[in-house]
């Protein structure tokens, strides 16, 4: 182990002898990686960026729908009156220039995050449907599941049993939602950790994604509550002088729950991504201090990067589990009988 570390250290110092001195805008790099974009930058090959140009779909208030490749807006170019500004307001977003003013059109472009979302949704559907197919083709009473089914089944049953514990009687109605949410978050968390093409998008670290998930939980909780749940919400059993305050507090807490779910998942995943990117960026930040410094810091960076990646794998699972568990608990509260 010690020898391996020494070899690594030597290798990094050696490699950094050939490093070019060039200032890297670290903050920009980091925010580019965790943010959304109209193209998916995969790598650079001989100074040419290799990226997928995704379709821009916008609806202008004046000229209706426009669909075109984001290649036409590269490097600040403008097309059909649309452009992507590099400064505020609307930095990095498609805007329409109307009378010299930046106007944000209705924008449902297939961005990096949307493509990633589509791919992971298809992947998840394939995984779960293949597992379900195993159970349709085989007699589960005769055979133990093999392959994919054996891998997915324990996770499904973990969530199913969690629903059973936290919700009680009619947990079967809610278990598919909890399973879908769990697998969706888990898969996208892991896809986010993978640093190259099919992965790498920071989907579960995007507040829009976590907000939709949390809103799903919110509506599931508050649309299918029992009579007792609503009574507790608006007219709880408390001493008279608390009667006017308690409903306020209760309603407020019901509204805060989805917000906490949103922020928890979003912040955890975003912070994980930023941490890993920072550690990786140490290598580039050190370039100007000479080979010895760069090499040794690369060594440190790789060790920390490895540690953080492993930590993120743990966090990916924990956050998916926590989101699902809290959702099931909230649903369980809304199904209260007495």
């Amino acid at each position, binding site marked *: 182990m010690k020898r391996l570390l020494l070899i690594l250290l030597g290798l990094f110092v050696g490699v950094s002898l050939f490093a070019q001195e060039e200032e890297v805008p670290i903050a920009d790099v980091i925010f580019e990686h965790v943010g*959304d974009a109209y193209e998916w930058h995969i790598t650079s090959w001989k100074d040419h960026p290799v990226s997928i140009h995704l379709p821009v779909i916008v609806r202008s208030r004046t000229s209706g729908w426009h669909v075109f490749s984001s290649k036409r807006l590269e490097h600040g170019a403008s097309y059909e009156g649309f452009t992507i500004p590099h400064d505020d307001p609307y930095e990095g977003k498609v805007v329409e220039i109307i009378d010299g003013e930046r106007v944000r059109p209705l*924008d449902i472009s297939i961005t990096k995050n*949307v493509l990633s979302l589509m791919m992971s*949704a298809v992947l998840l559907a394939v995984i*779960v449907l293949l*597992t*379900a197919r195993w*159970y349709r083709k085989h007699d589960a009473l005769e055979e133990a599941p093999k392959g994919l089914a054996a891998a997915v089944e324990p996770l499904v049953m973990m969530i199913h049993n969690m629903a059973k514990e936290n919700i009680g009687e009619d947990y079967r109605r809610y*278990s598919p939602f909890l399973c879908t949410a769990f697998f969706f978050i888990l898969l996208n968390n892991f896809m986010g950790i993978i640093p190259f093409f099919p992965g790498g998008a920071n989907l579960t670290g995007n507040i829009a994604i976590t907000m939709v998930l949390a809103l799903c939980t919110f509506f599931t909780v508050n649309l299918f509550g029992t009579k007792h749940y609503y009574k507790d919400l608006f007219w709880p059993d408390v001493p008279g002088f608390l009667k006017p305050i308690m409903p306020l507090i209760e309603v407020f807490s019901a509204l805060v729950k989805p917000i906490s779910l949103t922020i928890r998942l979003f912040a955890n995943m975003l912070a994980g991504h930023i941490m890993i990117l920072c550690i990786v960026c140490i290598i580039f930040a050190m370039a100007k201090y000479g080979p010895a410094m760069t090499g040794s810091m690369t060594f440190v960076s790789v060790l920390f990067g490895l540690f953080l990646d492993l930590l993120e794998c743990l966090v990916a699972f924990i956050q998916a589990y926590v989101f699902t568990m809290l959702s099931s608990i909230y649903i369980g509260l809304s199904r209260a009988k007495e």
Partner: protein
Amino acid sequence: MSLFTPDAGLLFWMVIIFGLLFFILAKWGFPLITSMVDKRSAAIDKSLRDAKEVEVRLSEMTAEHERMLSEARKEQSVMLKEASDTRKAIIEEAKTEARAEADKILSEARVRIEAEKESALRDIRREVAMLSVGVAEKILRKDLSDAERGEDYLSTLVEEAARSEKTLS
């Protein structure tokens, strides 16, 4: 900052895609898996219960078998004992019967011997009487002619006869 403001386009796509995904998985995915696994765990529970029941029944049967075996053994020993008792009794009875028979035969034989002896004695006595009468006649014919001597002699004879009578009887 754009990181903290949810983007409308992404929201739109997320709602559609997640909704579709949920619809598909909730219809053809998870319920099938969970119901099959639930069914399987129910089957496993049932077979475990059955196995336990069978085990209990098996142990009951073993105990029953054991009990029957020991009972049979006991019965066997009882029967053996009875048989030997009966044998002894039969032998005993046969012995006593044989003894009684032997006694009867002996006593009968004794009675008959006694009777035979009696009749033989009677015959002998008769014979002796006849003989003595004959002897007497012969003696009388020869010696009674000598009166005096005859008288002595007669009395001696009578005495002797009487003595011999005594011994004979």
